[in-house]
C-alpha cells in the first residue's frame, strides 16, 4: 500500500535542464497545464452561444465572473477594476487546481508550498509595486500608523515591517497546509478500508465519503480566502490608511 504522503511526490515526466538548473516538466507542471486548459475550455466553450437567457454552462461562467467582479468591487472599490483580470485568473487557477486535485489518481499542484508561495510572492511584490507607483514615498507611512507617539516608532516600525513581510508567508502556508492536510487525511482513512475487511471497513469508508464532501468545501473556501486577501492587500495598497 502506498503511504499517505506518496501522492505528493513530484516526478519528472520530461527531464529538461536549462543551464544547470533542473527545469523538468513534472507531474505538477502537467496538472497546472491541465488546470489552465480546463479554465480556458470552460470559459470559451460555455460562452460560445452567448444567449440572452443563459444555459447551464453559460450561467456557471457568468456566475464565476460576477462572483469575482463583486468581490473586487466590494473590497477594492471602483479603482480595483483594472486589476480584475489578474484577480479573476488567480481565483480560477487556484479553484481549478484544488478541484482537479480531488479527482482520484490526479495530482494537486496547490498542495506544494513552492507553488502557493510563488503565487503569494507574485501578489506581494505586485501589490507593493502598485502602492509605490501610486503613493511614491508616502508608501512608507504605511509602517507608522497615524497617531502613534514618536517614542514608540523605533519599536513599532520593525514590527510593522515584519507584519507586512509575513503576508506572503501566511498567504502561501494557509493554502498549502489546507490542501495537504485534507489530502493526507483522505489517504490515511482510505488506507484503513481494505485492512479492516468487509465488517469494519465501512466506518473509514463513510468517513472518507464525508471528508470528500468537506474537501470540496475547503477547495472552494481556500481559493476564496486567497482571492479575498489579495483584494484586501490591493485595497491597502490603493487607499493607504
Amino acid at each position, binding site marked *: 500500500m502506498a503511504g499517505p504522503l506518496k501522492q505528493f511526490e513530484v516526478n519528472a515526466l520530461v527531464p529538461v535542464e536549462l543551464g544547470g538548473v533542473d527545469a523538468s516538466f513534472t507531474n505538477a507542471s502537467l496538472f497546472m497545464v491541465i488546470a489552465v486548459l480546463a479554465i480556458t475550455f470552460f470559459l470559451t466553450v460555455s460562452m460560445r452561444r452567448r444567449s440572452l437567457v443563459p444555459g447551464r454552462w453559460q450561467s456557471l461562467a457568468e456566475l464565476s465572473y460576477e462572483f469575482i467582479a463583486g468581490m473586487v468591487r466590494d473590497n477594492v472599490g471602483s479603482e480595483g477594476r483594472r486589476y480584475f483580470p489578474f484577480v479573476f485568473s488567480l481565483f480560477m487557477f487556484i479553484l481549478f487546481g484544488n478541484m482537479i486535485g480531488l479527482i482520484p489518481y490526479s495530482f494537486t499542484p496547490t498542495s506544494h508550498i513552492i507553488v502557493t508561495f510563488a503565487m503569494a510572492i507574485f501578489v506581494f511584490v505586485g501589490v507593493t509595486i502598485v502602492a509605490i507607483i501610486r503613493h511614491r514615498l508616502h508608501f512608507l507611512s504605511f509602517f507608522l500608523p497615524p497617531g502613534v507617539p514618536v517614542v514608540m516608532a523605533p519599536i513599532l516600525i520593525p514590527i510593522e515591517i515584519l507584519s507586512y513581510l509575513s503576508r506572503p*508567508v501566511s498567504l502561501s502556508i494557509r493554502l498549502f497546509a489546507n490542501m495537504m492536510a485534507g489530502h493526507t487525511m483522505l489517504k490515511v482513512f482510505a488506507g484503513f478500508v481494505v485492512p479492516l475487511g468487509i465488517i469494519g471497513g465501512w466506518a473509514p469508508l463513510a468517513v472518507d465519503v464525508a471528508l470528500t464532501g468537506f474537501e470540496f468545501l475547503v477547495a472552494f473556501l481556500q481559493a476564496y480566502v486567497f482571492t479575498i486577501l489579495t483584494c484586501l492587500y490591493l485595497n491597502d495598497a490603493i487607499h493607504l*490608511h
Partner: protein
Amino acid sequence: MAGFGLAFRIGVELVAALVVGVGIGLLLDNWLETGPWFLVAFFFLGAAAGVLNVYRAASGIGLGPGYGEPAEGKRQAKKDNGDAPT
C-alpha cells in the same frame, strides 16, 4: 466548521510572522557574524508582529495585516451582515 477555519487562519498569521522574524534574524547573523543577537532580537519582533497580525485578523481590520479601510461596498455589507466574511 467555520470556527475551525477561523482558528486555523489566525494560527497561520501568528506562525508566519514568527517564521519571517526568525528567518531574517538568522540571515543577518550569518551575514554579519554577530552571534545569536539578531536572532534573539528578531525572534521577539516576529512574535510581536504575529500577535499584531492576530489582533488585526480577529478584530476584522482589513481581515489581516494592514490598516486598509474597507471600501464603500464592504462597509455597507459589514453593516448588513454584522460580520466579516471568513
